[in-house]
């Protein structure tokens, strides 16, 4: 065991960057390999919702609690790129109102602060809401800039010596005779050269591509690749995040970000997520739902539309009922392959927590005693990532 253990992280999305931040705080040498640019995969495309957890408090309490805890941590450590104006869960019809008791119960169980408002009160707060709003709940939702949150974690890790190599694609794993992963084979896309990088632990933080990397070592993770569409409109119709008060469905979140309103999302399965075209029919269906919440968006100009593929942990069910929580996988346990862990699933809001669990597992496997410090360490300025 060398003085300074070296962790190689594949993937520079939220998970990879946050794990680099955590491990460097625990004294690790860290190398992050990313085939694209920071947050150029799923992470960059998040609509930026800093979840209060209320969306999951009824059906998935675990995810709900994770979200509210991490919401509070991120507001402390990543203030630089968060607009925090709260959010509303809005009831438009009797079916929505019937969901309210479960919602309140779930929120309390997950210690998510909610405040009940009449329809009229909600309209006073957000005049562009559908005037037939019957009931609403104020929650501590926020909005973050996707790229800058990842950059902030990366910048912090870089300050403590982490090396980030964007445009470097992992082509294969280097495995020794004792079924231990020793490193990776890398293709530098800026020069065409291929070479090896060796380390003490390989962390697969490639999110929705985790299965592809695992397959390089003849191992696997139970993952469903689940794309969904998002649409950005040219109007900041509300100051707060607007959610539909009901079970999670399509087009039931509208997020204000800069001068836009971003609507999300849908959910379907795919097998190749390197490039997914926007399905216009999905956009139409999703917009129909969203326009119910904010009718003013019907007149707004569509600024952009894109697909984002989420990794959902497969508990053998379809689409939405897949778990929105995250999981660390030790490939020693799965297929006897040492020196290799995978972290996948989860949501952007829980990236710090995901990194903590991953770093805990890495430390445990390497016999390193080091506590997690990321709850308290305020992140460096995201621009510092670009310092050479």
């Amino acid at each position: 065991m060398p003085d300074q253990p070296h962790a190689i992280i594949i993937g520079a999305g939220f998970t990879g960057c946050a794990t680099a931040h955590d491990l460097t705080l625990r004294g690790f040498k860290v190398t992050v390999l990313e085939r694209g640019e920071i947050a150029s995969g799923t992470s960059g495309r998040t609509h930026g919702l800093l979840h209060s957890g209320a969306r999951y408090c009824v059906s998935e309490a675990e995810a709900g609690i994770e979200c509210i805890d991490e919401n509070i941590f991120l507001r402390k450590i990543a203030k630089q790129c968060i607009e925090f104006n709260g959010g509303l869960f809005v009831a438009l019809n009797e079916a929505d109102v019937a969901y309210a008791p479960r919602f309140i119960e779930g929120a309390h169980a997950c210690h998510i602060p909610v405040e009940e408002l009449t329809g009229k009160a909600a309209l006073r707060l957000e005049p562009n809401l559908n005037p037939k709003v019957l009931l609403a709940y104020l929650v501590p939702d926020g909005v973050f800039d996707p790229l800058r949150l990842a950059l902030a974690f990366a910048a912090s890790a870089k300050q403590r010596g982490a090396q980030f190599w964007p445009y470097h694609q992992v082509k294969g794993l280097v495995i020794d005779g004792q079924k231990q992963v020793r490193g990776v084979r890398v293709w530098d896309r800026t020069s065409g050269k291929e070479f090896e990088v060796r380390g003490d632990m390989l962390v697969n933080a490639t999110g929705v591509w985790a299965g592809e990397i695992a397959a390089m070592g003849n191992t696997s993770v139970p993952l469903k690749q689940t794309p969904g569409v998002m649409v950005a409109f040219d109007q900041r119709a509300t100051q707060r995040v607007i959610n539909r008060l009901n079970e999670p469905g399509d087009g039931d979140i509208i997020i204000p970000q800069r001068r836009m309103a971003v609507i999300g999302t849908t959910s379907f399965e795919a097998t190749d997520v390197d490039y997914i075209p926007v399905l216009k029919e999905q956009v139409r269906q999703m917009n129909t739902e969203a326009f119910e919440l904010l009718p003013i968006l019907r007149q707004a100009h569509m600024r952009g539309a894109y697909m984002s593929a989420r990794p959902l942990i497969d508990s053998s069910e379809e689409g939405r009922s897949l778990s929105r929580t995250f999981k660390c996988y030790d490939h020693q346990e799965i297929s006897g392959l040492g020196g290799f862990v995978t972290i996948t699933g989860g949501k952007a809001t829980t990236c710090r927590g995901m990194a903590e669990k991953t770093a805990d597992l890495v430390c445990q496997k390497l016999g390193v005693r080091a506590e997690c410090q990321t709850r308290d360490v305020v992140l460096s300025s995201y621009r510092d990532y670009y310092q050479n």
Partner: protein
Amino acid sequence: MNVEKWKVTFVVSRQKNQEPRLYQSFQLEIDPDEYVLDGVERIWAFHDRSLTYRHACHHSTCGACGMLVNGVEKLTCITSIRSVTHNGGTLKVEPLRNFAVVSDLVVDMSNFYTHLEAAQFGQVASLAQAALPHDADTRSVTDGEFERLVDCIECGLCVSACPSALTSETYYGPAVLAAAQQAFNQSKNSALIHFADQHDGAWGCHSAYECSAVCPSNVDPAWRIMDLRKKTLAYRIKQLFRK
């Protein structure tokens, strides 16, 4: 479901290892309502995996995907193919000007970010501070203090279009000066006046106004630079009388 498809020739700038620039053509059959960035992504995904480019959010908040499209600075995630070419036409994609090329469409913006940091520019501000005084677009119609991510997404399109940035490596550039103006409005820190009051600062601008013309995000850097000059002058005059 019939989706309209256009035949478009993407002509993409390729450059590796400090070698001279080459243009590579790719024939794509593509829905014209897709964005230029979608075209670039398709080329990477289905034609040439060695193509390097920057992108993250795909909805004009991160500023990563700025490129030259047919010679004009554009944020490629919100620039539809329909708006820049026609069926059977070409679409030229090149990296932004005035930054050294790292690889293909990726440029080195580290100096840019260092200066933005020196301008003490924060990404989150109150609604009033975030927008221009003559632009009421995002003011809240209700009571309450709200904050939002500001307009400038640090994409660098303005620097690419600026003739002063074309010939001077040390000129701060429109984004940095606009950032200093916004930061000064919020903090009234006189250090920012000193920052701007340089040959390479606000006085390096020569009124081409192309920065504001290409800005995809309502920043109006030209207006902000002139406003910063006004404030610098006012400060200097006040200093004279204090003596």
